[in-house]
């Protein structure tokens, strides 16, 4: 059987045109996907059963789901400052349950954006986000800027489907309709495909953005001859290109969010784009990583008013990155339990943070053996969303789509596990109050 119009559960592109051949409840072929998406849908070795161990250095023993769930609930219910982290490679239905569980246990919920596009949200708090859906950019953009992102490696179909090579209603010649500019600290594969590559010194993007804003505002006379390693004449040339666009789009990535200045880079980039709207139409959009990391931000915002890093310890939400993000808390050694689900803190946090996680009980909910599994006391395997489970995901531009189920498995879903943990936590808390 070939299942058509399948959504890809890997990156924020959330491509929805895959064709997957399933024979005897097994994926045998994946068409139209990129190499990463195909690899994800074809699958990898699974954790076969729930496991527990008291000593993180010891071996796991297989346990029943009930035992693993009850133990997890006990740890969370008795914790004063539990961190519930991950949430990005799951569907929205389970994220809602995650917020509820966080309320129930008075913990902190934080998603993978905190090591990815968290600073982009902080930039949005400062300046907003003039953006649109990916089809808008595909149909119209004649100037395409990639800043600190490398879609060839991280979002392999992005340039083909949405941003560069695709033909649109107005941009009807595809690649030839568009001028492509890449800002980066090194000449990436994406830069190799660009019409213009601007090499910026590491950590000096902010100043380059400020200089471009000044030039766009015709106040370029104050700009010195070189900014952030870029000659002024090159900045003037690029500013003219951007100003001359009928429709300009800036895609940005972790080259901005993780470099010096962090969210201020996003703040400045949004300002540049906003100011460019005095000339043509301009938009900006973060290149989100996980296929539903955007969904977590949406769910968390409508549930709590805040986009991530929400501390529910007082019964109402408090949000303050720098204070309530995972790495803030881990580096302060405040956390007394960690619940890692649908995201791999172990593989993507700095070693010093993980070492601190090593000192507290860790519950890991994941279909696969990850680096977090190595740090865990309890491991609960679940379904792979978007392959074995239906549900909602938000593309990087905030368009939500329904993930399809391709094969049946016996594992419970994240949502089912969360439901059971919530029920058990309520039972424990109810008994003690």
């Amino acid at each position: 059987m070939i299942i058509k119009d399948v959504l890809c559960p890997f990156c924020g592109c959330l491509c929805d045109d895959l064709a997957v051949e399933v024979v005897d409840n097994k994926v045998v072929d994946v068409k139209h996907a990129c190499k990463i998406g195909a690899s994800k849908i074809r699958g990898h070795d699974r954790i076969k059963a729930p496991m527990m161990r008291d000593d993180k250095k010891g071996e796991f023993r297989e346990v029943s789901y009930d035992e693993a769930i009850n133990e997890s609930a006990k740890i969370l219910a008795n914790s004063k400052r539990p961190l519930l982290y991950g949430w990005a490679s799951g569907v929205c239905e389970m994220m809602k349950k995650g917020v509820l569980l966080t309320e129930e246990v008075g913990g902190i919920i934080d998603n993978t954006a905190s090591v990815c596009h968290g600073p982009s949200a902080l930039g949005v708090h400062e300046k907003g986000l003039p953006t649109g859906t990916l089809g808008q950019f595909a149909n119209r953009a004649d100037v395409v800027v990639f800043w600190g992102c490398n879609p060839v490696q991280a979002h392999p179909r992005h340039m083909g489907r949405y941003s560069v090579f695709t033909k649109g209603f107005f941009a009807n010649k595809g690649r030839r309709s568009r001028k492509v500019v890449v800002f980066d600290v090194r000449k990436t594969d994406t830069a190799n495909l660009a019409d213009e590559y601007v090499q910026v010194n590491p950590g000096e993007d902010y100043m380059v953005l400020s200089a471009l804003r000044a030039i766009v505002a015709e106040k370029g006379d104050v700009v010195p001859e070189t900014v952030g390693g870029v000659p002024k004449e090159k900045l003037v040339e690029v500013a003219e290109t951007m100003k001359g666009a009928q429709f300009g789009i800036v895609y940005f990535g972790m080259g901005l969010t993780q470099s010096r200045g962090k969210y201020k880079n996003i703040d400045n980039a949004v300002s540049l784009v906003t100011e460019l709207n005095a000339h043509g139409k301009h938009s900006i959009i973060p290149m989100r990583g996980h296929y539903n990391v955007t969904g977590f931000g949406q769910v968390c915002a409508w549930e709590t008013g805040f986009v991530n890093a929400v501390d529910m310890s007082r019964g109402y939400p408090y949000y303050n990155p720098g204070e309530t993000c995972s790495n803030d808390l881990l580096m302060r050694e405040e956390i007394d339990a960690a619940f890692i689900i649908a995201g791999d803190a172990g593989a993507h946090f700095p070693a010093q943070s993980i070492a601190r996680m090593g000192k507290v009980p860790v519950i890991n909910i994941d279909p696969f053996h990850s680096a977090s599994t190595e740090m865990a006391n309890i491991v609960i395997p679940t379904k792979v969303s978007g392959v074995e489970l239906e549900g909602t995901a938000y593309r990087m531009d905030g368009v939500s789509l329904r993930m399809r189920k391709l094969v049946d498995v016996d594992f419970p879903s994240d949502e089912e596990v969360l439901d059971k943990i919530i029920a058990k936590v309520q039972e424990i808390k109810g008994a003690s109050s």
Partner: protein
Amino acid sequence: MQTVTLVPKEQFKISVEGEKISPDNFAGKSADEIGALVAYEGNTPRPLSELFDIKVDGRADAADDVKIEINGKVPRVKRIGEGMTGGRIMINGDVDMRCGAKMKGGIITIKGNADSWVGQEMTGGEINVQGNAAFYVGAGYRGEPCGMRGGKITVFGNANDFVGEHMCGGEIVIKGNSGIMPGLSNKGGKIVIEGNTTMPGSEMIKGTIIVKGTVENLIPVYQREGIEAVDGVEFTKYVGDVVVGGKGELFVK
């Protein structure tokens, strides 16, 4: 005059939200009454008496006549002195985040280091940090148009990034160095950095930043206005940020 002495019973690992610790909340209260006030240790409400040894000498009706002395380090107690209108708090050690947030009057002295957001959104009063301060000295909450609006913060050591973000009034003095981007998007007030800093005054609309040490990465959107003396010392004066049509004054040695 009422003097309240708090001695932490342990070094808290999990942060305690100590917004009740202020002259306004303590005025006229006995040790028992103060001990019954609740602070949250993580998600767990705990009476102050469980967390601190509490001693009260004398009595006062108003915050102005209350002095709180915290003997010991409290690097995991947040929000001390929040919203206080008068009186004094003396912290004989380090203190956690948001100390003196929304403070309106009185004096807080921190003998050790202050964690981030010291004097967040304060409108009056005085905070002295004798050690170092972390991030966002005198800044605002996320998304608020104004950070500090009035009062004075002095940091005798170094401060980290984003000093005085969105500052609308008041004065901040950093005796040591500051991290990147002090005075971001400020709309008023005065920041004096006696040591070195990086990228000061971006998007400054109004206000004054004086850097007595060296400036690394002067952001490329300031108009140089020539040499001007401040308190008898000559500085190069810049005006900007020109991108936002700013009239802020940046004095660089």
